[in-house]
């Protein structure tokens, strides 16, 4: 069992939890994820790591309530425990293997969308600690859905975009990217984009025009998360790869996003059925 030592609400339906998981906290690196199970009978849910504290032995996760399993996780409170918390899984971000010398020469543009802002944070923080200042675009539908603005501002240069213009730039993150790159003439060696699949797809289409290397982090469906089931397979550069062991980060210009989005929706119908069944209170025999 893994205790929830802190919980706070970041936005509607988005919660941050700090989990006591000493070994995971000591091994975690930017770019990796964990598999979480709320209780016996719970699904194995892959969640990206939002932060980790090796000394305190805690790992931070940020969860948005989307389906039955994420609702179950978010319903737990401080002091409660998760049945399982396994990780860190996946390969760390490429830059953790680079020397400080190499890193100093590189300019990064991070593009974070919605709950995808959380896994961008440890990357920007890691680079900051290695002497690299990064530009970070954070996008959301509206002001109230923005998360991690304060945290991110401490480690990177934050630029905000909201669809409705309630905060920062009005429009999509791709519009703000164009302002920085084409408008202000900023140069980047690499763009790292984490967010909804559809956003990553359009960010990649934009950076492709600039021939800018772009790394994306895919949130594919998984069962075990350790390379055993193959549920998370994705086509990258014409080859089938497993998100859990080959990723989760890939060269975004090579990812087949349309296939990835279709595969992500594989159990949608069933999940909805399940939810309906659970929420439907049958009165047939109640009288």
């Amino acid at each position, binding site marked *: 069992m893994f205790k929830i030592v802190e919980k706070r609400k970041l936005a509607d339906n988005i919660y941050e939890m700090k989990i006591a998981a000493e070994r995971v906290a000591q091994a975690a690196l930017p770019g990796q994820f964990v598999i979480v199970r709320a209780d016996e009978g719970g699904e194995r849910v892959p969640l990206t790591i939002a932060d980790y504290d090796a000394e305190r032995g805690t790992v931070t996760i940020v969860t948005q309530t989307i389906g039955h399993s994420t609702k179950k996780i978010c319903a737990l409170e401080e002091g409660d425990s998760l049945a399982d918390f396994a*990780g860190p899984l996946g390969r760390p971000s490429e830059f953790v293997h680079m020397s400080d010398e190499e890193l100093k020469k590189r300019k990064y543009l991070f593009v974070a969308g919605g709950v995808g802002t959380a896994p961008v944070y440890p990357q920007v923080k890691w680079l900051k600690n290695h002497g690299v200042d990064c530009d970070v675009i954070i996008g959301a539908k509206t002001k109230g859905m923005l998360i991690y603005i304060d945290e991110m501002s401490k480690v990177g240069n934050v630029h905000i975009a909201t669809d409705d213009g309630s905060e920062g730039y009005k429009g999509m993150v791709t519009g703000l990217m164009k302002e920085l790159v084409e408008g202000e003439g900023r140069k980047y060696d690499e763009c790292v984009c984490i967010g909804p699949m559809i956003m990553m797809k359009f960010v990649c289409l934009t950076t492709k025009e600039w021939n800018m290397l772009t790394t994306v982090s895919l949130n594919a469906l998984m069962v075990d998360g*350790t390379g055993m*089931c193959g549920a998370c397979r994705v086509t990258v550069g014409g080859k089938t790869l497993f998100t859990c062991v080959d990723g989760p980060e890939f060269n975004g210009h090579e990812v087949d996003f349309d296939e990835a989005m279709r595969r992500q929706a594989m159990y949608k119908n069933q999940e909805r059925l399940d939810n309906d069944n659970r929420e439907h209170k049958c009165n047939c025999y109640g009288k």
Partner: protein
Amino acid sequence: MANKIPRVPVREQDPVVRATNFEEVCYGYNAEEAALEATRCLNCKNPRCVAACPVNIRIPDFIHHITEGDLRAAADTIHVDSSLPSICGRVCPQESQCEGSCVLGIKGEPVAIGKLERFVGDWALEHSNEAEAPKIEPNGKRVAIVGSGPAGLACASDLAKMGYQVDVFEALHRLGGVLSYGIPEFRLPKERVVAREINEVKKLGVRFETDVIIGRTMTIDSLLDKEGYDAVFVGSGAGLPRFMGIEGENLNGVLSANEFLTRVNLMGAWDPKHSDTPVYVGRKVVVVGGGNVAMDAVRTAKRLGAEAVIVYRRGEAELPARKEEVHHAKEEGIEFRMLTNPTRILGSEDGWVTGINCVEMELGEPDASGRRSPQEKAGSDFTIDCDVVIMALGTSPNPLIASTTSGLNINRRGCIEADEVGTTSRAGVFAGGDAVTGAATVILAMGAGRKAAKAIDEYVRSK
């Protein structure tokens, strides 16, 4: 003198009924049936069954104890060579091992060695509390074991009996490896058999920890250098599922047998009241492959309500699955399309499987390995309509441990290089089971775990 009666039939669940539930197919022998079947053994002077057993269980000896009604002695005899009789009695391919070389099998039916082993194993589990608790003197040495499948369990149990403090690290949330995630309940009951076998290992003082992925949560290097273990045994199992590389394999509705079976067995998707994990079978499922995993997948799909078909590129005689599983599958109404090879998976506009294109095959001349290799029959294309395609084509090794352990060599196929007793290229690291051989059997993994336990003991003593 041996009794010249025919092989005592074993009671099984009715095929029509069992094809709709997950209860165990075979009820096994009761005491009378076992005692009667045991009288058939000729107690050969030169027992070929023992030589044909991968771990050389003293088969005539334990059977003889059954005829005498001394089941404790029968259990003790098996335990000298095997740690998991309840499991191996159920899942070993007896027809190509012990029973396949039984003298009685030449003219008639071999002794039901597997069913007798299972009977003795189950008896021992049921009566384990009456057995004397083993007195073990701790030797102060510690061994870490990676994976709680058959290889790890066998290795852990032997080392614990020698006085080692053994810690087993399991990546998943449940213990047992393939016994839990792979082999279905109807063939290997989880609570009644697997959990109890593991409990026997726990009684020896072995500690188990789930949710630890060696290679990620901790590395083998850190187990040896930082955590201070005297040796490590790697029994991490097979790994990444293979696909065919044909068009349409990433359509929705195409999955590996590993994924399908993990959803159903490990995650409990067969029982939606108690599990949040979904599984989809649609109306008709095609399973590609002919091994035990293919049989498990196709019979599971049938139990979940789908029409279920096996597609295999060689002939029935070449099916690598246990004969009993093929027989049971047929009884349950599974359709077998032999000498059939998929060429393309067809999908709807929105990306869901609608069918699978196949060609008929014929067996050509024997190749270098002596097996007749299948060749396509020209112009024999046809389509099987289906909603789900499950690929049961074996696995290739998971690179996680090899890539994070310094000085650990892997072979051409990506498996960990190890000798007969599990010694690897890295001092203090031993390996066995599927991680070394590629996908094989429970008994081979169990045997490898036991050999490695001996080698580990010698290594630690000589340090």
